[in-house]
């Protein structure tokens, strides 16, 4: 069975240069042979990419200089309390607001002063009753 270029290239990509069944096609197809060469070079480049940098004697010190302080024990509790302070204040504000809303405002306890028309109507009613 003769494989087409697409299948050959898929096999090369999946299986590497020794992908089975590709030799015959590569010998007969210069374009796929060129593709296989480029792919092999790309794989070689991927294996060799990068640099050989190694840490110098001061690396650990440079890392240590950048470490944020780790809080332990009582410090952690203190820090947690500080972090909780805004939430506690907010809660206190909300509770105060709720308490204020549930208490009737002083004005609402006063009886409104009747208007002159109301007085007139009431006195007229009083007259009728008598």
């Amino acid at each position, binding site marked *: 069975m003769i494989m087409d270029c697409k299948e050959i*290239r898929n096999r090369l*990509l*999946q299986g590497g240069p020794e992908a089975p069944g590709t030799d015959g096609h590569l010998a007969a197809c210069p*374009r796929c042979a*060129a*593709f296989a060469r*480029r*792919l092999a*070079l*790309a*794989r*070689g*480049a*991927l*294996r*060799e*990419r*990068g*640099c*050989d*940098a*190694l*840490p110098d004697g001061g*690396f*650990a*010190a*440079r*890392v*240590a200089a*950048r*470490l*944020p*302080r*780790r*809080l*332990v024990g009582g410090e952690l509790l203190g820090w947690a309390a500080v972090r909780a302070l805004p939430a506690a204040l907010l809660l206190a504000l909300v509770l105060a607001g709720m308490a204020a809303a549930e208490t009737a405002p002083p004005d609402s306890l006063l009886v409104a002063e009747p208007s002159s028309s109301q007085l007139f109507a009431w006195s007229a009613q009083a007259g009728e009753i008598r």
Partner: protein
Amino acid sequence: MTGIQALIRFEPLARPPEAAGAEARLIRSSLAGEEDAFAALVRRHQTRVFRLAGRFFRRPQDVEDVAQDTFLRAWRKLPTYRAEAPFEHWLTRLCLRCVYDRLRRRTREESSAGDAELVAPASDPDARLEVERLLARLSPADRFVLTLLEGEGWTVAEIAQRLGWTQTNVKVRAHRARKRLRRVLEGEEKG
């Protein structure tokens, strides 16, 4: 197996028990906030982290930055470390994630600037430079996955384990990366 593969393979290392005990003490002290103990941990693992980061970057400064990021992240996340797996495996995962994050952050301009420092090996320099130019067209995420697959020779399962990704995620990324590699290599035929 390449030297790097041997360096970062995940099988338990034949480390003497006293060395493992010393490392566990350093970890405990670091958790208690002792920076000297953590610096000792850094010195133990810095070469491994540099070599791993060095697989992905050409500029030594990039490697140094990633190595520093790795250890800073380790310091922050140390309370989450469970001693079920060796510390170096945990550190390898952090390092790979730092590499990946840095590659993703890099802008296209930075990548182009990086291409200028490509150095071709003595053998067939023209062909190598040409391939480097082609690889530079891939996205950093694609190069990351291809470096692990093709460069390190890791399997999908190994990559998933070492990065903490699902195998499906790795398969999808690998498929896309290979597809783009193919497109890039075939693009040269048409050009």
